[in-house]
């Protein structure tokens, strides 16, 4: 009796699964279907104002995007276009419904809701960005490997000129090179220090690929290769060793530091009034941004390998292209300094004392 019931259940399930499969093959539209028209580089439409709008989607670039790689299909985003009717000139409805990235990226969406941009949009300001005005949509890439400047260029600088604002901040260009916009503008997320190797001779960051090729190691063994004390973290000495090995291979690199925002959905809560403005938030030894430090090695797909670094290494002279006044002073400079000043004091004090003590001597002579 029990076996009979089970058999029926199994058959039922198989049937259901088959049905589902059937429905899928019959109705679901594949990317190839869409690309039959939209994969043609010249595919475009003329707008009422006479301008031509390209409707081309580059299949190879789409396949290489994060969404392509993760098998997100055209109709996952263009959910309203999931049926094609070839009897019509245009086989789907036009205009298409706006794509809602937040359907999948719900954490980003909810952080975004509390951003200045969302509130400007709610007030009817259409130029304030939604997800895909900042990000690409078809060719979205991972962003972790981007440097602070690249991030600013690709995102905020499309619409804002930070040099015209922030009048209160000295050395603006320098700050914007070493501090990501979101570090200050998404203060709830928090930040960390990203150290990267900057090739001074070439004037560019050393890519992860090139670095590992020169060192003849892979991403997994890179840190172990230098981790002489086996604590799983880069120390100042280990960093200096890395720079020296590169120099032997004719690559003149310095270690540059940047404050970057943590790679977390909450970074989308961009604010204005609560943005970091206090110099001490960064320019102090216990700055919250200095607690976590990583050596960032880029990967080809836009992600990055992050190797932990002992945060004491920040005050080493070897992290030579990063000095946030006060926060990472080099300790031995201060010691030398005290000795220099004491030297002056000792000279004046010693000579002066001798002069006082020898007053009687000079009196006698006279």
């Amino acid at each position, binding site marked *: 009796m029990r076996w009979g019931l089970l058999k029926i259940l199994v058959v039922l399930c198989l049937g259901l699964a088959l049905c589902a499969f059937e429905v899928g093959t019959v109705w679901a539209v594949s990317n190839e279907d869409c690309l039959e028209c939209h994969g043609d580089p010249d595919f475009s439409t003329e707008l009422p104002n006479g301008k031509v709008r390209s409707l081309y989607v580059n299949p190879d670039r789409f396949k290489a995007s994060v969404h392509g790689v993760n098998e997100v299909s055209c109709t996952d985003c263009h959910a309203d276009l999931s049926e094609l009717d070839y009897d019509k000139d245009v086989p789907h409805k036009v205009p298409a419904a706006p794509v809602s990235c937040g359907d999948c990226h719900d954490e980003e969406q909810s952080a975004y809701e509390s951003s200045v941009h969302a509130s400007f949009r709610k007030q009817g300001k259409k130029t304030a960005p939604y997800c895909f005005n900042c990000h690409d949509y078809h060719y979205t890439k991972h962003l972790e490997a981007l440097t602070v400047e690249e991030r600013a260029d690709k995102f905020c600088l499309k619409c804002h000129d930070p040099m015209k604002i922030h009048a209160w901040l000295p050395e603006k260009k320098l700050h914007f090179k070493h501090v990501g916009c979101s570090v200050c503008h998404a203060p709830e997320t928090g930040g960390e220090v990203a150290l990267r190797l900057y090739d001074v001779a070439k004037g560019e960051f050393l890519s992860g690929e090139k670095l590992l090729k020169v060192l003849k190691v892979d991403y997994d063994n890179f840190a172990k290769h230098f981790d002489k004390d086996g604590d799983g973290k880069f120390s100042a000495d280990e960093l200096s060793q890395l720079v020296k090995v590169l120099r032997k291979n004719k690559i003149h690199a310095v270690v*540059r530091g940047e404050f970057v925002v943590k790679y977390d959905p909450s970074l989308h809560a961009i604010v204005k009034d609560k943005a970091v403005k206090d110099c001490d938030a960064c320019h102090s030894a216990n700055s919250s941004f200095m607690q976590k430090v990583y050596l960032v090695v880029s990967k080809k797909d836009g992600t990055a390998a992050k190797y932990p670094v002992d945060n004491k290494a920040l005050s080493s002279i070897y992290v030579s292209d990063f000095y946030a006044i*006060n926060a990472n002073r080099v300790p031995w400079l201060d010691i030398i*300094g005290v000795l220099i000043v004491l030297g002056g004091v000792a000279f004046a004090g010693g000579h002066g004392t001798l002069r006082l003590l020898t007053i009687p001597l000079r009196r006698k002579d006279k």
Partner: protein
Amino acid sequence: MKRIYLHPLPVRIWHWIHAACIVLLVLSGIQIRYADHIHFMSLKDAVNFHNIIGIIVSIDFLLWFGYYVFTGKIKTYFPTAEEILHGAIRQIRYYGYGIFKGEPNPFHPTPDNKFNPLQKGAYMTIMLVLLPLQIVTGIILLDVEKWSYIVDFLGGIKVVDAIHVLLFFFFASFIIAHFYLATLGHTPLAHFKAMITGWEEEPEEHH
């Protein structure tokens, strides 16, 4: 008493502007470097103040340099071979020994040759090497991005900063020593007076 007109007016004005600026630069420099321990001024005010004074002192230095090169007075800073070989030793012996016994200073300033061999060596290094280096590194730090190619060449901002900071300690030490040495005239205040009135008094010597 013999009176010599040692410091013409422009030199005195220059000296005191310079003195005030260096003291203010050292003080604001301390505030900038140790903002977490010293809370006299906000970092921002200290940076702005330091920048303004730094620009003033740089202009002051250029004026001085122009004046000294143009009038040929710059030569007073270059020691002669005799001074390097013998004068310096004479002077060291005096400061290290003779002065305590009340011996007369072996060096007698004249308006054209007002520095003793040790002063020449020290001031030449300071005015023609260390101060210019401090001004150059200061100007780089004023707008690091503008000079990024130099900064990169030197190895990064921390290197430039280290040079600037070591010189800052040197100048702090120099102020102390300089102030003390200024009390070594024939009376403790003689040199100070001279730097105000221009006239240095020298005791008459009996040969």
